[in-house]
């Protein structure tokens, strides 16, 4: 079911995504940043990631929110894979217990 609107949407998504990826590079390649700007740049990516996941605490079930807390504790100790496993298992467990 590849109609024109679907094709245009997908190609448009690809274009704006690549635009966002190229844009920051083009803006900054010929600049040197001062100390304050460097500090802002170094904290910014963390702000991005935390902004993406913060709404999970609003939209999730109570089981999801407990699972997020357990996942956070796991992340302090375990690597990527272990944390993902704990995250999935705890979301399954808490939602099963609380439903």
């Amino acid at each position, binding site marked *: *079911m590849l109609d024109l*609107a*679907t094709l245009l*949407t*997908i*190609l*448009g*998504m690809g274009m*704006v*995504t*690549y*635009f*966002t*990826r*190229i844009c*920051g*590079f083009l*803006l*900054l*390649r010929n600049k040197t940043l001062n*100390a304050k700007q460097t*500090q*802002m*740049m*170094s*904290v*910014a*990516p*963390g*702000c*991005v*990631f*935390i*902004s*993406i*996941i*913060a*709404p*999970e605490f*609003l*939209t999730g079930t109570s089981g999801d929110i407990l*699972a*997020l807390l357990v*996942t956070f504790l*796991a*992340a*302090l100790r375990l*690597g*990527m*894979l272990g*944390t*993902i496993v*704990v*995250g*999935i298992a*705890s*979301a*399954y*467990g808490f*939602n099963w217990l609380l439903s």
Partner: protein
Amino acid sequence: MSVSKPSQHAFVEGMLIAFPLLLGFVPVAFMLGAEAAQKDFSSVLIMFLTMVNFAGGSEFAAIELWTSPPAVLFIIFVTLMVNSRHIIMGATLAPHIKHLPKRKILPTLFFMADEVWALAMQDITKQHKHTPSKKGFRFDFYLGVALPLYVTWSVCAGLGAYYGNMLGDLHQYGLHMAFPAMFIVILVGMWNGKHNALPWLVSALVAMLAYHYLPGGWYVILGTFSGIVVVYFQGDSNA
């Protein structure tokens, strides 16, 4: 076209470092495909979307907002909003790749997904500590991270669209937690002391408020910028 030894080595090193992440991509991409199938996407179509776009957050948002026929400009706009964080990520990567030829810079930026970028920045710091005289960015390492993730993401989204309906609602298996879990691990890795705390807290609160009161992907942008504004007004970190 023989590949020299150190670069081959770096490619494999990238693959190995990305491997745990790759396993994390499997359930998340599967979820994406299953949700896309509910909006009448075929396996081929969701694979096409993920290969053109390769930015998971915006793909979930697009599928969520998908109608038949899709609201073309609205979905493209939300994609732009959700992915505007790449502008900041690209800016932090810029000083490390600007010496490269265009034929390397353009693919590097194409594959700059969140996780790829995070691993690349980690490697740059590590390489720089090791040999401060050299540029820290390794193109072959980067491809070793990016290409397997790119293929896995797309193939598993296709499988999710094909098999997803047989398994029923995937939320009951807790698979939806794989995505935030990945981001939590990346965040823990980025933590480098107390001066992160206030900007992160403000970002989180503003993002939640914006998510609640505003449409589309505004929450990512407003959350990010409010955190950066806090850094601007904070005193110099004595770290």
